[in-house]
């Protein structure tokens, strides 16, 4: 005689679409870690295995639920680029890879194929906006302009404004009748 516990007999194995999404996310994550890697020197090479491990953990394993892992993997890629300071083109690609990874690592698990396609389609506008912005920034940076602290401050201000705009808001509370 055995006790009856709660269970999930109906839980199925990961679907093909889910596997494909994870593989693509893994490729984007590996790309963002490996792109600046050739120019790393000395101890900074430790960032590459650490970043790859974080990417792998963010996709599968017991720590995948811990959402900070994906952010840490992207932060590792940013640190690599800050240390190596590659060309503008490489930086632009790196930024797009980071965006792609961050968008896809958030994909819900175990979606059927049609739902996955629909979900990916809805992410497309964000990716297009990212590409568009990267192109504009690339063009602006490619034009030789003397370094200005004001420009950096303006960039920081733009980032803050973007975050404030994107934050969810509550509708205004109706006034209580007197």
């Amino acid at each position, binding site marked *: 005689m055995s006790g*009856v516990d709660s269970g999930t*007999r109906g839980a199925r194995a990961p679907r093909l679409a889910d596997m494909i999404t994870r593989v693509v996310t893994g490729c984007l994550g590996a790309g963002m870690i490996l792109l600046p890697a050739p120019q790393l020197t000395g101890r900074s090479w430790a960032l590459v295995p650490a970043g790859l491990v974080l990417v792998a953990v963010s996709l599968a394993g017991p720590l995948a639920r811990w959402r900070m892992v994906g952010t840490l993997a992207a932060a590792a890629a*940013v640190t690599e680029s800050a240390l190596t300071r590659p060309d503008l083109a490489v930086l632009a690609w*790196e930024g797009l890879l980071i965006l792609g990874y961050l*968008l896809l690592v958030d994909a819900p698990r175990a979606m059927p194929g049609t739902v996955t396609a629909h979900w990916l389609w*809805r992410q497309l506008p964000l990716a297009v906006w990212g590409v568009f912005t990267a192109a504009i920034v690339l063009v602006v940076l490619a034009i030789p302009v003397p370094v200005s602290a004001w420009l950096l401050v303006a960039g920081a201000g733009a*980032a803050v404004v973007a*975050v404030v705009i994107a934050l969810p808001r509550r509708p205004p509370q109706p006034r209580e009748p007197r």
Partner: protein
Amino acid sequence: MPLARVPATWQAAPRLRRLATIGVAVVLVAVLTRHADLLLLGAPALAALAAARRGSRPEALDAAVAATPSRCFEGEDVEIVATVAAPVDEVTFRIEPGPAVTVTEGPVTQVAVAGQPASARWVLQPHAWGRHQLCTVTARCTDGMGRASLTLRPETVEVFPHPPPARASLLPADLLRRIGEHTATAPGAGIEFSGIRGYQPGDRLRDLNWAVTSRLGQPHVNQRAALRAADLVIMIDAFSDVGPPGDTSLDLAVRGAAGLATAYLRTGDRVGVVVLGGVLRWLAPSPGNRHFFRIVEMAFGVRFPSEATPDLDRVPRTALPPRALVVLFSPLLDRRALNAVTDLRQRGVSLVIVDVLTREPPAEPRLPMAQLAVRLWRLDRGALRSSLAGLGVPVLSWDSGTGLEGAQVPLRGRRIRAVR
């Protein structure tokens, strides 16, 4: 399925936190290192943040979860359908089955994207009787960079105990003077042969036993046993409840009670219930299949922890009628239940005990005294059963893996006598 307004608390979605963290980190690095080139790393993330859908979000969302049917037996399928009717980008449903509930159909996590009906379906199988909330469904609604989490709980489902196969073979020595289906010792108009006697005026000619008549030269007739009904009172010892969820001693007791009640009601007998433990409750014996549902509905409330000792004097005569057979389902762990047994014997009640304790105390193999303690426990149980047998109370052992009819075998063909 009617939808209800469920209050939603919107928070920043994990994606917003990720993109904002990376965007701000890149800008900080660019400022600190005085390299504007690095802004290229964070510009796409910040652009995606800015491009996300904005605007006010509803404070409450229309959502519902339904469980059908609302009544079932253990092991039967119950369909759970969760629906969220709200203009959001994505809804992720996740079901958390309750204890002793299995998901048999449908992935635990289901995702619906805007443009498709936001609903999810699962099939659950409850394995424990009672009034249960079989599951909790969490619906995470993502809209732009905001996220709201709704907790949906279906209505309680009444899960009836699955009656194990049983026979109405346990009978008291004295049956009632009411026509039924049990063979009595008294002669009557039944179908079972009980003896031969000399012909009396008024006997039917078809009852003549021609072989004996021709041999003895005097007319003799066959006698037949009367068919009588019985009253059964099932007692459930709810003082102790040990074992894993869905398979506790109390679960087993109620299942056994349901099986025995089904068997006796099928033969036209009257069945009543007395619950020992918590508040003393009873249901007077009554016939009919509808009475089965009254019995199991009363059994739903047996899990009521209490320190009170039952006073059987409070049970009215109608609930514990004379000449009724009392079957007590008990793990024989609580002294109060054993006192009730003694009390019943002193009243001259025909009593049978069904032992529903199927597990021994866990013996930790690393502790040297554990095995000895278990052996002592076994000896104590054996002594208890012997003392009950000395009182004239038969004790049957029943394991949930088998039907109740297997446990009834030792008493087959034996009438339970009331011994004071």
